[in-house]
């Protein structure tokens, strides 16, 4: 614990270069209000050229407070200052304190607040929005500010932003968890550091793909129609009714969207079925690629590096929620546009089956712990349930679907649909799971009981959510302890990563970039950070941090996602072929498109009753 006798409320004005994929511009000014132990205030107004270290850094511990500190982290990196520690970000604390409130609406979680909105929520006076816009415009639109303009920006920065932050802090102070808030503060600055580094993109190839995206999408639509022998796309428009008929004809059960209660072929609902039905796998992969090509744009800076807003705390579980227009929002095949620069290497560290590990640790289920630590819990379950030593890939997939499904609150009907088996068979597998992981099963039930009391479920570092009492919340709360604590772990890892060169992260994996001769050492250090962090949060239980030799990509190779590698690169090679074909067509003047646009879900839901059917061959192979 650190005792701070001084608090510094900091803000800076700069061109954020929003949506451009660039690093933020050099700060026009950095201002701070330093509150001393005796209550006196010192106002700092800085402009370029900046001192080598902040004037308030006098060696003794002080607390830095800001609102959306990532922005200030960018300014500090620009001027060569170390990131301050300890630091508290009132944006992060607002998201922690008001998560349940922000999830109350019917349209998903509200976006995070601006400083003005947060002040309004706490009844604190803040600046005029129009004045803020005017000042921002002044900071964004030029680089050669006059002395008068710099003074105006400093006045705004200090008298409005810093002063509003101070007032907001006074209002929020009784509710802030000061012990854990600095972890979130460090996380907010570290993710800006990650954005600062950016993700290297093979721009030559990316430009070719982007240039021909409409033609490639058209070819994909045509190939998909041919492969499925149906006009799933007609004149470029996705026909949901045709897809429903195809599924009905092939005996594939059509999922019902739990949110609407209507039949749906949304990819998120079909994803669990791709291991069972080859037609669905084809549809899923093609549709995701077609949709991605329809919005094929990444924010890439002039240094050929992809940067984007991670939207921390954007989901109710505390997960980040970046836009789909990011490399992580594209189908995994397209992540191969990521390519290290000469002399560099990229490594992916995966928290393999993190949900299972967290569930095992939290529930204390000894069998699930042992299965997780074996490296392949799903295989262990299949082995035990089927009484065999070497289950097939499909059998493993079945028991994986069951374990993950149970944690997500999946019932026998959905499991049966996803696996193409009867309801009785699905129930038997679920019973097998309840019997094998009886401690987990009972624990999940108790978590639901607590959630049903409309009492916050709080994760290890304070992220929490309360039930609203609405129907259908059980699934959220069955999974919340796992997703929520996974998010807490991710934040702690970032906070402790220091100078480790993280350039990207998903919910359960990290991407690092370093010199080719250093990458393995860097990976090892990161693995230690992840294992120690998980041990600290999970009562000594260490999660896996997998990074095999093949998870490291050296120049001139390109990054390949594990799933794409397992599929033999077929989708990537197919994409490359289509790019070449599109270029050849263009050269020959045949740049045609049987369809238009990227395809969209533009039909109403089909609400007709469609009988479910099961695939007997699958049932036989599963062996249930």
């Amino acid at each position: 614990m650190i005792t701070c006798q001084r608090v510094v409320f900091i803000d800076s004005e700069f061109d954020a270069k929003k949506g451009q994929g660039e690093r933020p511009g050099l700060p026009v000014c950095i201002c701070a209000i330093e509150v001393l132990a005796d209550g006196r205030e010192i106002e700092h107004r800085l402009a370029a050229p900046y001192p080598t270290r902040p004037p308030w850094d006098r060696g003794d511990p002080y607390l830095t407070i800001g609102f959306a500190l990532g922005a200030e982290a960018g300014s500090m990196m620009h001027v060569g200052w170390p990131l301050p520690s300890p630091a508290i970000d009132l944006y992060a604390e607002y998201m922690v304190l008001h998560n349940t409130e922000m999830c109350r609406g019917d349209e998903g979680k509200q976006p995070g607040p601006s400083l003005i909105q947060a002040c309004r929520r706490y009844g604190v006076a803040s600046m005029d929005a129009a004045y803020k816009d005017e000042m921002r415009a002044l900071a964004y639109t030029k680089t050669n500010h006059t002395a008068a303009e710099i003074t105006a920006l400093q006045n705004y920065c200090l008298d409005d932003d810093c002063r509003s932050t101070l007032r907001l802090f006074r209002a929020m102070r009784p509710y802030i968890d000061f012990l854990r808030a600095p972890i979130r503060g460090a996380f907010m600055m570290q993710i800006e550091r990650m954005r600062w580094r950016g993700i290297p993109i093979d721009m030559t190839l990316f430009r070719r793909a982007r240039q021909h995206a409409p033609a490639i999408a058209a070819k994909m639509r045509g190939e998909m129609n041919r492969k499925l022998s149906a006009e799933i796309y007609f004149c470029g428009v996705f026909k949901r009714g045709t897809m429903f008929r195809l599924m009905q004809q092939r005996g594939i059960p059509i999922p019902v969207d739990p949110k609407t209660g209507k039949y749906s072929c949304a990819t998120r609902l079909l994803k669990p079925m791709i291991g069972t039905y080859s037609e669905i796998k084809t549809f899923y992969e093609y549709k995701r690629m077609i949709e991605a090509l329809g919005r094929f744009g990444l924010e890439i800076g002039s240094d050929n590096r992809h940067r984007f807003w991670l939207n921390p705390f954007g989901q109710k579980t505390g997960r980040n929620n970046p836009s789909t227009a990011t490399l992580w929002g594209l189908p995994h095949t397209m992540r191969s546009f990521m390519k290290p620069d000469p002399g560099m290497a990229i490594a992916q560290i995966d928290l393999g089956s993190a949900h299972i590990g967290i569930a095992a640790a939290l529930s204390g289920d000894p069998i699930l712990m042992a299965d997780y630590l074996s490296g392949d819990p799903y295989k262990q379950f299949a082995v035990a349930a089927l009484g065999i030593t070497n289950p097939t890939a499909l059998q493993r997939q079945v028991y994986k679907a069951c374990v993950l499904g149970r944690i997500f609150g999946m019932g026998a009907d959905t499991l049966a649909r996803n696996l193409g088996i009867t309801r009785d068979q699905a129930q038997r597998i679920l019973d097998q799971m309840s019997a094998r992981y009886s401690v987990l099963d009972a624990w999940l039930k108790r978590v639901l009981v607590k959630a049903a009391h409309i009492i916050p479920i709080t994760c290890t570092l304070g992220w929490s959510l309360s039930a609203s009492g609405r129907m259908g919340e059980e699934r959220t709360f069955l999974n919340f302890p796992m997703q929520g604590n996974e998010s807490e772990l991710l934040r702690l890892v970032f906070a402790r990563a220091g100078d480790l060169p993280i350039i990207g992260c998903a919910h359960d994996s990290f991407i690092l970039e370093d010199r080719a001769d250093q990458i393995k050492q860097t990976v090892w250090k990161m693995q230690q950070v992840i294992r120690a962090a998980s041990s600290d949060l999970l009562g000594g239980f260490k999660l896996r941090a997998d990074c095999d030799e093949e998870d490291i990509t050296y120049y001139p190779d390109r990054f390949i996602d594990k799933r794409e590698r397992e599929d033999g690169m077929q989708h990537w090679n197919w994409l490359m072929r289509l790019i070449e074909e599109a270029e050849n067509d263009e050269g020959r003047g045949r740049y045609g498109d049987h369809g238009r646009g990227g395809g969209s879900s533009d039909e109403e839901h089909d609400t007709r009753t469609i009988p479910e059917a099961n695939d007997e061959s699958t049932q036989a192979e599963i062996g249930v």
Partner: protein
Amino acid sequence: MAENPNLEETTPQTNSGNSGSPPITPINVGEPADAASLAIDQKHLEDFLQTDMKPGVVECKRPAKATFFTVRKEDPKEAWKDRALYFMLEPEGRDPYLVPPAIAAKKKEDEDTIRAVLLVRYVTMAGEEGLWPLKLNPQEGKSNRWNTSAMNALRVAENGAWVRLISKGEYRIQVSGKKMTEVPPRFSERTFSELVNAAFPPDRVINSLDHPIWDELANGRTK
């Protein structure tokens, strides 16, 4: 306030601050390095443990396969607390009935479906309680491998082990690597009698010689 914004650092201004507001320092804050001590114990997820510790149904059957369970040992010098001998009647494919000794004594000669069983209270690793009916070997005649191995499993369990039954021509016994100290058994505060009453509500107890079950057993049933 800076007159010249191009100065390296403008002169700091001091003022008396917000005289009406309480001081904001000192503030004690945690550090990422302290996460192990800062981690909120997730046991709070089980705050309402007691609310679901009384299931409406207590099952009277052998502990489920693949489920580790244990039992409490009885003190040979005292009356049993968590086990007792009962007579049970088990019609084919139906739930068992409990038969009081007086009724059993009168019907036992005619009905081989009435058997003496040892009902033993058990609890699974997950904290679910039940009654395990162990069939007894006849005092005269040949013993049965299932009965004998079940009784052996009971002895292993009552000596402080989590055990699991595996059916392979007999009950094979798997002992968990988890010790009682690592996963302590969570027996509820209910008494053995309460469990028996829950497992055998009044309609599952044959209290008279006029009970319809006797007619069914003697003459068959149509349903």
